[in-house]
């Protein structure tokens, strides 16, 4: 990734994005408590297997009530429903920021 991108953008997680917003995955890191280390590992491994890997492009398709829990995300051509705790484990950069970063 372009280093200018990460330095100019505020770090966000997928769970914070609004419907219709696009982003690029930076990496995975579970911020939320309430899971055991094993559960966290399994969650991260599965997210990675589903395609939430650095550089992958995502778009938020839909958000339920209750602060986007669950959230529907399109990643490299497939759509997944993620709970808030899962979407909070995906660190992303908003696509608009990436676009300006690339242009600069």
């Amino acid at each position, binding site marked *: 990734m372009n280093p200018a991108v990460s330095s100019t953008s505020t770090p966000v997680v997928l769970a914070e994005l609004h419907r219709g917003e696009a982003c690029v995955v930076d990496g995975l890191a579970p911020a939320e408590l309430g899971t055991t280390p094993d559960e966290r590992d399994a*969650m991260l491994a599965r997210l990675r297997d589903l395609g939430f890997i650095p550089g992958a492009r995502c778009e938020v398709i*839909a958000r*339920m009530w209750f602060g986007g829990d669950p959230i529907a995300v399109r990643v490299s051509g497939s759509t997944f*429903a993620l709970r808030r705790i899962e979407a909070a484990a995906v660190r992303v950069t908003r696509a608009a920021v990436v676009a300006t970063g690339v242009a600069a």
Partner: protein
Amino acid sequence: MDVAVEIKPLRLALVGVPNCGKTALFNRLTGSRQKVANYPGVTVERREGERLSADGRTQQVLDLPGTYSLKPTTLDEAITRDVLLGRVANVPPPELVVCVVDAVHLPIGLRLALEVKSLGLPMVLALNRMDVAKRRNVKIDVTKLAAELGVPVLPTIAIKRGGADVLIEALDPALWIHHRRIAAPAWIEATAEDAEQRQKDLRGVLEAVGYHAPVENPWFARLDALLLHPVGGLLILASVLFVMFQAVFSWAEAPMNWIDGGMAGLGTWTAAQLPAGPLTSLLVNGVIGGAGAVLVFLPQILILFLFILALEDSGYLPRAAYLLDKLMGGVGLSGRAFIPLLSSFACAIPGIMAARTIPNWRDRLTTIMIAPLMTCSARLPVYALLIGALIPAKTVGGFNLQGLVMFVLYLAGIVSAVMVAFVLKHFSGARTYSPLMLELPDYQWPHLGNLLLGLWERVKIFLSRVGGIILALMIVLWFLSSYPAPPPDATGPAIQYSFAGKLGQLLEYIFAPIGFNWQISIALVPGLAAREVAVSALGTVYSMSAAGDDVAGQLSPVIAGTWSLATACSLLAWYVFAPQCLSTLAVVKRETNSWRYPIIMAAYLFVLAYVASFVTYRAVSAWA
């Protein structure tokens, strides 16, 4: 590589991520020569089929449960890994793995293919849905993909006749005789580094074959905007379910009348052909009457399953799970529980089995425990009989009163399920994290051939139940209600002196407080094996207690004439909970691998049923 053995690919296994068209390909390879059984020890559905290879030998084809990874999160996924590794007793590892990859969503399927390939089993890759890939402008260099992976890559279109021909050619055992494989596949759980390395390999392969994401179908986005809308989506879901249940009742009416008429005609014809006697009585009352009373609701089961299969095939069901996840979370259920619970409206058994796709054990257990509260189709004939006999067919507030009562009964089941789930949530202690991470697959038109195969499977299961358990029970019941014969100076109906009559009179002590007479008490006993039998049992009991050889068809007026409204309402309330279904309890035992849960289930359902019937009986008696 220690011992090398020559392979002769007579045992094939299909592996792939969910929604890659694996089952359609399985149907294409095996046609209707398939059987569904269970893996030893667990009730993960084991779909196996047979096909004749080019050299005339029989190839076994195993359709393994879909998985994204060999690191399992559900029971289903663990089975796929364990079968590949040869860890499942009595299931030898496959001699050739057919890895099915959706060409449209190449990355996710290819990642699994790389992982499966690392096991060292001989493998071919079926690049499926090539037609959709072409339409959506996905270009894949197949030759290069085969070179990169080092395995044959066969483009397929599973839903098209002849769409798997290249794959079938590649499965010819003659092509494989010079291949050798290692004695036992090896698997080490991937570390985070391994997983990252595999992602790098994957990216390399994707670049080499020139893959880029498919052109988005604008309809998918439009449909998702509508169907996943927090308000609109829920309204549409409610309408879909409403139409489904409406269809179950209105579309099934005509075929049900035909079956009813046909069986009644057959009974009358048989009675006319044979001399009166015990054998004729057995044939007409036991066999024809009993089987007919159950066969009659095959149409309803088929319509219900048609809807469920079509909704599943179209990609809508996971979206319903998405919509309901948080709402169901409030009572301690996962959105994933929606699909098993919906299936339970047809029958709790497939519903309880479908619960294995729920990763979290507590969520899964709660789903299993409340599945029998969804009004299964086996309770329909009981409801239909009692409502038809005792509820007047008048209109109340613009609604048909009989339909309204039926709706209330369904609702009573759902409301009690919510309450039971809520109570279980509080008993089960601390809540653990339960993964959702559910794929919402591309929309597609349900494929008619696959729907028909799915329905055919249900018909086979249902008919073998009618032919097997139910028929045997009806014969036993006929025997019990015919012997011993009444003494010559008998005044009451013959059945009162039989074994069944005595048993019913004993049971009446338990059931009298909730208003059941001895005829109902007897009918509840064979109802243990299959709920629907209660109706035919009532038919048998009443036709045997009547003077002539009346076929069960005249049950409705008999009930209307002899039962009080309170008794009928009490029996309806009983059937909302209906604890008596041995097959359900047996499946729960297998699924949970313990006697504890089926015993708890039977006990809590019995208590709920008894209390509900008692309250209903007393309330209606006081009011009427």
